[in-house]
């Protein structure tokens, strides 16, 4: 299993915090941490109930919820249905983010350049090494591209971002799938590795003729030159909240047990192809039922009131249709 990751320290962190924690405790993915803590803050102001979220990484979140040391776990990579069944867990997507390719080429502005999955994969495979390669030119007949070597930048640390990016490349390119595959850390054929989204952003803004991939929020906040992508329907899309939400609503959530949907390469004319949800994991029958109910109340509140806050932080709220479905899941699965 790729998702079953461990953090040695995670046990220590959770053990030491749960002793004097607020009524709800959660642990896991680092990517949604800013929005979870913002929600918790607003929720506390409104209801007086606190929430303690430890961002220890997706793997740690899964470990902690399996060990029942927290009320909920959070992971960027969903667990498969059989795994959920085995551990007695319920799972649903909470909020979304998107991953965008970013470049630094002199004279090229944000949104001008367009890639498709195949070309992106070939750049990351080291098959396309110059910006004026025929494949890139074909997609961008109107953009002036230099005859310079491409500096490929990617993550050096294991990350959910890398998981979703490589998952997309695997879907878009058979060659990538067989040579590299998907995972939180993969065998990169070329390029330099930088730590964290901030490391990749920093590298891209400093290095001329470079390409990388970051969470949408980082691209936006650091004013990086993002690119458009050709999606599964063959349409060119730009990274916008509408495009990310289109990917989520076009995904077939209803047929996926445990909401096991990886949002990359979804159908639909408007869908952004590298969209990713981050997931919540909870025991169907928690040891502390009061805390479970309290947590559900919080999540319900967040779905209802948290959309705007999420957008302010450049996250993408779940579409209403999905939220309604999640409500049904709660009623059916979480025992009080």
């Amino acid at each position, binding site marked *: 299993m790729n998702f079953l990751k*461990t953090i040695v320290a995670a046990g220590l962190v959770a053990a030491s915090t749960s002793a004097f924690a607020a009524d709800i405790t959660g642990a896991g993915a680092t990517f949604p941490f800013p929005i979870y803590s913002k929600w918790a803050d607003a929720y506390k102001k409104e209801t007086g109930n606190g929430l303690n979220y430890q961002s220890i990484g997706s793997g740690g979140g899964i470990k902690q919820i399996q060990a029942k040391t927290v009320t909920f776990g959070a992971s960027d990579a969903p667990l498969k249905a059989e795994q959920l069944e085995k551990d007695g867990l319920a799972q649903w997507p909470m909020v979304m983010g998107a991953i965008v390719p970013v470049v630094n080429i002199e004279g090229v502005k944000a949104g001008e350049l367009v890639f498709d999955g195949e070309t992106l994969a070939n750049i990351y495979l080291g098959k396309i090494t110059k910006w004026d390669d025929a494949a890139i030119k074909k997609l961008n007949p109107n953009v002036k591209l230099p005859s310079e070597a491409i500096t490929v930048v990617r993550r050096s640390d294991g990350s959910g971002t890398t998981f979703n990016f490589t998952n997309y490349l695997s879907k878009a390119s058979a060659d990538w799938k067989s040579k590299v595959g998907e995972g939180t850390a*993969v065998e990169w054929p070329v390029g330099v590795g930088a*730590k964290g989204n901030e490391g990749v952003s920093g590298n891209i803004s400093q290095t001329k003729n470079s390409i990388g991939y970051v969470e949408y929020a980082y691209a936006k906040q650091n004013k990086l030159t993002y690119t458009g992508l050709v999606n599964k329907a063959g349409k060119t899309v730009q990274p916008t909240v509408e495009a990310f939400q289109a990917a989520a609503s076009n995904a077939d959530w209803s047929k996926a047990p445990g909401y096991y949907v990886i949002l990359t390469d979804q159908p639909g004319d408007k869908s952004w192809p590298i969209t990713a949800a981050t997931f919540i994991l909870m025991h169907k029958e928690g040891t502390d039922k009061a805390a479970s109910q309290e947590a559900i109340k919080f999540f319900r509140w967040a779905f209802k009131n948290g959309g705007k806050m999420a957008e302010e932080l450049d996250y993408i709220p779940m579409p209403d249709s999905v939220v309604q479905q999640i409500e049904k899941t709660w009623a059916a699965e979480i025992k009080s």
Partner: protein
Amino acid sequence: MAVQSDVIDDAGPYDRAKALSAFKLGDLTFYWITRLSAISVLLILGGIIVSLIVGAFPAMKEYGLSFLWTQRWAPSADPPVLGALGPMYGTLVTSFIAMLIAIPVGLGIAIFLTELCPQWLRRPIGMAVELLAGIPSIIYGMWGFFVLGPFLANTFQPFMIKIFDGVPVLGAIFAGPPSYLSLFNASLILAIMVLPFITSISVDVFKTVPPVLKEAAYGVGCTTWEVVRSVVIPYTRVGIIGGVMLALGRALGETMAVTFIIGNSFRISSSIFAPGTTISAAIASEFAESDGLHQSGLILLGLLLFVLTFFVLAAARLMLLRLEKKAGK
């Protein structure tokens, strides 16, 4: 006087034995406390080795000795293919280049400070060197990333690449394209980081050279260079090597700064301007989100670093012993 001495004589044998035994007890306690402290180091070390071996066992079983010469690092393959050659190469190369730069510079600073420097300049320079040791490694990493990297890639590396283009061996070592994140950048940062270890210790041991020796040498007409070369350095050789060993230990194990600037590529390239990785950088990058065989492989890397450091330090000890024997003749 007589009375007093009588009293002492009377009390003499009895009290003396008692006092001595009290001393003995104190001595014994002291002996055991210090001995236990010393032994605890061995116990802790043993504990670390045992837990590393236990953690690394699945990977050892899976890959065996081929772990040492496999260059592929594909944790997401099924089953994962892991090999330590890339990180081992990076660790040794960066440490080697760092020492190549830091030893002469560090010794130079120390010699200047103790032998040549005007009194008023001594404190500022000495403090500056010690401040270098106080800077957190993440700051070095950031500086390497934002300042040194761009300078190297835009100015220094193109220059070197041009000069050595077409020269056998050297041409391959200094091959392009220039990169912000490279083995060379990491080596430079490491050199700066280990500099204070070499300098401070060398300054301290240089100060232990008896002035008489130096004065005698100056008296027979030696120049400063000759005094340093033939009196100061031979006299303090053991201390200098101790400092170099400390520095080397740090260079081999430094993690945070290196992770920032080495480029984290598991591929071995003949060029030092290419990205690479070290054992500790690989562990720091991937440990948090690893599991199963991947995690075990990372722990095995840790064990390797442990063994590698042990052998490097042991080799240094041996070299020292041989040096001493030679000097003894």
